[in-house]
């Protein structure tokens, strides 16, 4: 059954949506959107590294993403975070493009790494994506309450014996895993969108953080399946179509929330 490339693509898309859901909520709540982009863009350097050294893609991307997280953590405070992350994010993307251009025969695949190639996902990719989703989900579920408190007030968390710095690294590790899982599906450029848009779309539907994470998973999965169907019928690139579907869902929930606010209770 897994021989069907469409089924593999659907499973890959849903797996990525589930991995992105709890992490995407924290990316939105902690205003880490730019940070997510910087990590995702660094993944392109991981691609270059993997091709140059003939090592597997998944671990190479994880290592580079974690290195990026360490750089961001080490440099924060010296520049305005916005500017710093902008420099790192675009710097990493440009450096990745330059590095990949040195490698023979890769240029033709570059689009696949930038915007994903979900229809070419193999069974081995599926195992990595779903394995990554389980690890990310487990990690964030384990630290859930501590992460929430550290997000609301680092001092309040510290006074209860929670280390805000350690919790930040939980998110860094989860982000590296999601980026590595997502690069085959939506590509380095659009992983940030997969983290943010479903979470933003879920916001008007939820009254608690837990409900928002669940709604994000549902919306992300719907976007993955809807985008895939759209790409099939319209003959459009699958990765960008999935992100378009998520953006449409965001527009729908935002508009519904706006209408609800205007109507008398």
């Amino acid at each position, binding site marked *: 059954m897994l021989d069907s490339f469409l089924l593999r693509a659907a499973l890959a898309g849903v797996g990525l949506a589930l991995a992105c859901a709890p992490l995407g909520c924290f990316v*939105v709540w902690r205003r880490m959107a730019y940070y997510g982009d910087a990590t995702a863009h660094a993944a392109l350097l991981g691609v270059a590294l993997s091709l140059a050294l003939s090592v597997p893609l998944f671990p190479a991307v994880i290592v580079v993403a974690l290195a990026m997280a360490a750089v961001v953590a080490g440099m924060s405070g010296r520049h305005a975070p916005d500017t710093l992350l902008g420099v790192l994010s675009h710097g990493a993307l440009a450096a990745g493009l330059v590095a990949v251009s040195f490698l023979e025969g890769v240029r033709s695949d570059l689009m696949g790494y930038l915007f994903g190639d979900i229809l070419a996902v193999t069974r081995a990719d599926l195992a990595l994506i779903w394995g990554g989703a389980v690890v990310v989900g487990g990690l964030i579920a384990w630290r859930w309450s501590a992460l929430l408190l550290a997000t*609301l*007030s680092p*001092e309040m968390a*510290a*006074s209860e014996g929670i280390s805000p710095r350690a919790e930040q690294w939980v998110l860094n590790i989860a982000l590296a895993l999601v980026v590595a899982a997502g690069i085959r599906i939506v590509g380095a450029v659009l992983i940030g969108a997969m983290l943010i848009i479903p979470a933003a779309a879920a916001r008007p539907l939820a*009254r608690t953080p837990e409900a928002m994470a669940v709604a994000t998973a549902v919306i992300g999965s719907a976007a993955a399946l809807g985008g895939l169907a759209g790409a099939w019928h319209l003959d459009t690139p699958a990765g960008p179509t999935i992100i378009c579907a998520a953006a449409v869902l965001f527009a729908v929930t935002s508009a519904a929330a706006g209408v609800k606010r205007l109507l008398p209770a």
Partner: protein
Amino acid sequence: MTLPDHDRLLELRRLSVEIEGRRVLDGVNLTLRRGEIVTIVGPNGSGKTTLMRAIIGTLRPSAGSVQRQPGLRIGYVPQRLAIDPTMPMTVGRFMALPRGRSRSAVEAALAEAGLAGAAGRQITALSGGQLQRVLLARALMDRPDLLILDEATAGLDQPAVAAFYARIEAVRATQGCAVLMVSHDLQIVMRASDHVVCLNGHVCCEGTPESVSSSPAYLRLFGAEGASTLALYRHHHSHSHDLPLDEDAA
């Protein structure tokens, strides 16, 4: 390390903290005992928040030490929450962070804070005064040995501030915890304190509210406002204080 005296909850010894090469705190000594209300006052940039953070443990001392009694439970009341509008969070869910608490315990704590039935409301929909009561109620749920309040009354009007401090004094009386407050809200804070520490990178002066508010170092730091606080204690003196402002205190 263990403190010898059972009632000594916290001891700072020659605590210095540097942030990006700048010495923000320099050789601060402070002892907190059970049942004591201590207030740190000081102008903006005097290191009050840095001192809090060093006590809580989010900042490391560059020299000196922070010694806590083993097993010390700290209840921390922040100035505000870094809650982004994208985070849905009900009062009840927040009160149960991080370890989970029974619904009835949360509702009882809210009722005691005068917020009965607020558990289902969104945190972002609360007024400043309501949020402050929620934060205090949450901090008290663990029956802390030490309650730390960071500018807890910033943005509240005078009656709300007075009510807040009345509650702090009541909590101290019923729970016997120590209270450490940081504030620039001079007048009422000083009336509610047993011990006042006037901070400006180092400890300028300390003692009872009355002795501090009449000390020259305090008056140099706080100028006219300090003088009016002094007037609260020395209202039988009717002369005016015309004090020069210290340059580095401004």
